[in-house]
């Protein structure tokens, strides 16, 4: 298996060793002993066919689900053993989902404020930060709109702004362009690439679209719950 030359000087953010995940009492195996390392500042694309385990891996990186076996560390600490997984998700991680997962009864600016309730910002600071982020993703004119009033691309921009709400060290994006037309998809991936550069964050993006994956600095290919290749992207 070809392994990409990692920037060895950078801090090790994620380390997975022999990671396994089974569902339904072992009838479904999503991950079969996966090994992986991701360093700070990388833009990693995880690609593979449907059911290869890439989304399951992303959920475990974000502590939304727990591995059945193996080791999964974040900055040297075991993710399954984190004393406060909510604090990890709140402070360290920003999620961007394929289905956007915005709250329908809240306006755009309110949706972006939702993650900030676990922080220490005041009411006005929360709103100020949300407005700032929405302006950064080009939605400063849509603050008071509800998600249903936005296009798919705009909703994903809101989701990206929400993912950045607590200034996370890592953004985990699960098929962020999967529900978008090609033009919107291009704009969203441009936005993510731009934000990755500007904000000095680690970006882990799951996709089945190779044109999207090629924008990453490193592409990890998965099949049947295992990594089959790990290499630097041609664009870089």
């Amino acid at each position: 298996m070809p392994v990409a030359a990692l920037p060895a000087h950078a801090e090790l953010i994620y380390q997975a060793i022999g990671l396994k995940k089974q569902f339904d009492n072992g009838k479904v195996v999503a991950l079969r002993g996966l090994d992986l390392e991701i360093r700070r500042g990388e833009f990693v694309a995880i690609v593979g066919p449907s059911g290869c385990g890439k989304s399951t891996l992303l959920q475990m990186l974000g502590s939304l689900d727990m591995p059945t076996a193996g080791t999964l560390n974040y900055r040297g600490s075991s993710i399954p053993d984190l004393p406060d997984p909510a604090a990890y998700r709140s402070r360290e991680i920003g999620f961007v989902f394929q289905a956007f997962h915005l709250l329908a009864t809240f306006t755009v600016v309110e949706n972006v404020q939702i993650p900030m309730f676990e922080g220490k910002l005041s009411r006005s600071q929360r709103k100020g930060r949300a407005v700032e982020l929405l302006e950064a993703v080009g939605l400063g004119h849509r603050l008071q709109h509800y998600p249903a009033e936005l296009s798919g691309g705009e909703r994903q921009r809101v989701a990206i702004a929400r993912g950045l709400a607590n200034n996370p060290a890592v953004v985990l994006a699960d098929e962020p362009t999967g529900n978008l037309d090609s033009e919107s998809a291009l704009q969203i991936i441009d936005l993510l690439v731009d934000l990755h550069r500007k904000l000095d964050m680690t970006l882990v993006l799951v996709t089945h679209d190779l044109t999207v994956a090629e924008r990453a600095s490193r592409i990890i290919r998965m099949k049947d719950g295992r990594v089959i290749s790990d290499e630097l992207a041609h664009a870089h």
Partner: protein
Amino acid sequence: MTFFTIVRRSLTRRPVRTCLTLVGISIGIAAVVTLVGMAWGYEKGVANQLDAVGADVVVSNMSGGLMPKVFSESLQAKVAKLPRVVDSTSILMQMLSVEDAPIMMISGREWGGFAWSRMTVLDGRMPKDGSEKAVVLGSLAAEVLKKKVGDTVQIEVEELPVVGIVDGHALMENGTIFLSLKVMQEATGNEDKINFVNIRVPPNTSKAEIELLCRDIKGIFPEGRAMVSTEVVGTSQGFRVIRAISWSTSLLAIIVGVLGVMNTMLMTVFERTHEIGILLAVGWRRRRIVAMVLYESALLGLLGGLVGVALGVLGLVTLGASPGVRGFIEPDLNPQLMLISIAISVVVGVLSGLYPAWRSSRLTPSLALQS
């Protein structure tokens, strides 16, 4: 946006369901305010009446009923001889349907006794003597019966002329028809029978001395009971029954409210599994999710309590003005009762939210997001 905005928004997203839940809980609270308010009003009315009559000790045989059993009027003579009794008077009181009024208090009072002395004649006169077949009406009784001096009132088999309208200085006194004891006994077929002996003791008599007197009375009237007038309401078994009925009926109504809120909150949690998954994914702690559900149910309880108290007050005012109650019970619009009712409603809301909140806190983020 504050945390309270999030709580409030989840209740307003389903306005019809929220309103129906509020109706459920507010009916329970309205029942508390109305039933307990009526019971307290009745108790207060009786206490005021005893105070207006000027009795220090009341002898009767309540036997668990609301109106005491009759006993021989000869008891009064025996009681009058006891130490510390400075005055005593016999009364035969009954609640009867009079003409169009479904229920009225009729009080036959020993002629010349102190129970007559505190009334003020507003119109006409008092009966000439103890044998005059006539009645005087409390001002409210006259209003309820639509009678004036010169009219007649049918009491059981007797048709008696109204010779006066009086102010009895208490709601129940004003809602009562008064006549002499002898006429009352004849009209109701209770010759030589009474059901109250009211006693006065010297001013500044100590509580211990009054208790001694009550014990003496118990000695000569074992089947009855002598009670300090200020304690009649608190110790009477009849009033205890009223209190128990009003609270237990209210409790049933509250239980219906609890089930309504619990159902709503469970539906809310089930419907919002996906949303709770999102909140968990963006870093909300489970205790914040629990707090959100409990705040929602507490808010439902608070709103239901406020609406319920308003409905209850409306019910009390309506009942108080109804023909069967007017002049008989003055509903107690007690702020303490209203605050208790609102507090009960909030507690009910929180309790109803406990299980749904627990359910919401058990959700796995990845599964909740897939729902």
